[in-house]
């Protein structure tokens, strides 16, 4: 990293993936390019201070932090990341530590019995629609409807996290 040649090689090797990443997350071409530019400039300016073992994870982390910072400061359309996050959570449901998404599990609990059953089979046990229909003795269409309503309810839950919740808990203690 200490000479312009090595720096340029690093840039050439990683810039494209980093830019594709920053663009995917923000859907803003200029912002995405600025982020990549700033990350490399920072890498160059701090090359004396930094002791980097693996460059790609370092660069990925730097871009990720910028993207999240701009998200928090409302510099691009927030719904882009939020939709992706919802998709990720729902697709990786079974791998996520339960204590993390207590909101999600609390919501699951609130679902009507049948809907909860279908959704858990679909997501946690990876059963196919046919298998679920057979197991519960209901039609394929019913299974599909239950899944889509259940997912919709979960998404709504992910979207709305009101601040007043802590207030409610506090007031209950009085």
């Amino acid at each position, binding site marked *: 990293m200490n*000479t*312009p*040649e090595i720096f*340029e090689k690093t*840039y*050439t090797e990683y*810039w*494209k*993936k980093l*830019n*594709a*990443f920053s*663009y*995917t*997350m923000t859907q803003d*071409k200029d912002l*995405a*390019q600025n982020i*990549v*530019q700033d990350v*490399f*400039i920072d890498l*160059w*300016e701090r090359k004396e201070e930094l002791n980097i073992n693996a460059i790609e994870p370092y660069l*990925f982390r730097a871009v*990720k932090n910028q*993207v*999240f910072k701009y*998200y*928090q*400061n*409302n*510099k691009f359309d*927030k719904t882009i*990341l*939020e939709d*992706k*996050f919802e998709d*990720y*959570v729902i697709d*990786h449901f079974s791998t*996520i*530590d339960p*204590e*993390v*998404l207590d*909101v999600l599990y609390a919501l699951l609990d609130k679902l009507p019995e049948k809907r909860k059953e279908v959704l858990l089979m679909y997501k946690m046990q990876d059963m196919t629609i046919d298998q679920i229909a057979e197991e519960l003795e209901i039609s394929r269409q019913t299974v599909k409807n239950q899944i889509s309503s259940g997912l919709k309810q979960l998404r709504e839950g*992910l*979207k*709305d*996290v*009101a*601040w*007043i919740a802590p*207030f409610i808990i506090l007031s209950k203690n009085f």
Partner: protein
Amino acid sequence: MIKRIKHSLERLLDKSSRNKTSRAEEDLLNNFALSEYQNSNWDDASMGNSDEVSKNIYEGIQLRMEKKNAFPYLKYMAAASILFLVGLGFFYKPSIANEKQLTFKTSDVPKSIQLSDGSKIYLAANSLLQYPEKFLGEERKVSLLKGNAFFEVAKDKKHAFIITSGAIKTKVLGTSFHIQLSKSKCEVIVVTGKVNVSSKGQSVDLVPNEEALFSGEKLTKLAVDKSLLINWYTTDITLNEATLQQVITILQYKYGVTFEFENKAVLGVPVTVFIEKNASLESILKQINYITNLKFNVYDEIVKVN
């Protein structure tokens, strides 16, 4: 009660910024980002030609590299051919006409910025300003692309200061004034000094307490409501027994939000509020809620009141 609708992603990131996330929560955020990184691909249609983009980005990086490490870079280049030296010349002597444009954007709090000539600009929340890193030409030019700003322009008789906001150009020599730009109109209000406002053939000169309003292709001069001249940009202000309408007007300027009232009768209610220079919108709404019991819900740039 003040309620804001927040997404769970936002909640997690806020927690992370304050270092309050658990290991599992950090992992979730990181794995989410990693998954997006691994699956991202270049798309020419939306991202452009990758060779051009790469050049673009790298040129920006090089400009910063040569600023800090001039001599080592020169040494590296000296061994090269004459073509390279010409390229280096381009970096070393940017042409006078080529000012590097920067943008300054505010999100939900106002911020101030000082320009290379010493002029100071106070940008309200939700606003966007474009300005050059250094003023190099005969005229000093900036653009207000969105929102409201208060300008304190440094005196320089030789270089007129020109602000473009929407369809109008405001020209000043050294003065302080306020510009509000919205989708349907643009207003310029003079606090001290003298200003000329023009648009496509129409032109008016303004002195303190006068305003130019550009709306529907017409430029008119008006006398100004005093409340707009209060310097909320730079000082704390106390509004004593002001009507709610007057308070709302100032909040609209300061935070770039609009208010929607279920019951307009409340606008006449007198209130006393203290608006600190750096206060957040939420803290002021809390004050008003405490006095009046009105409920405020903030949705991005709209505040609903009932």
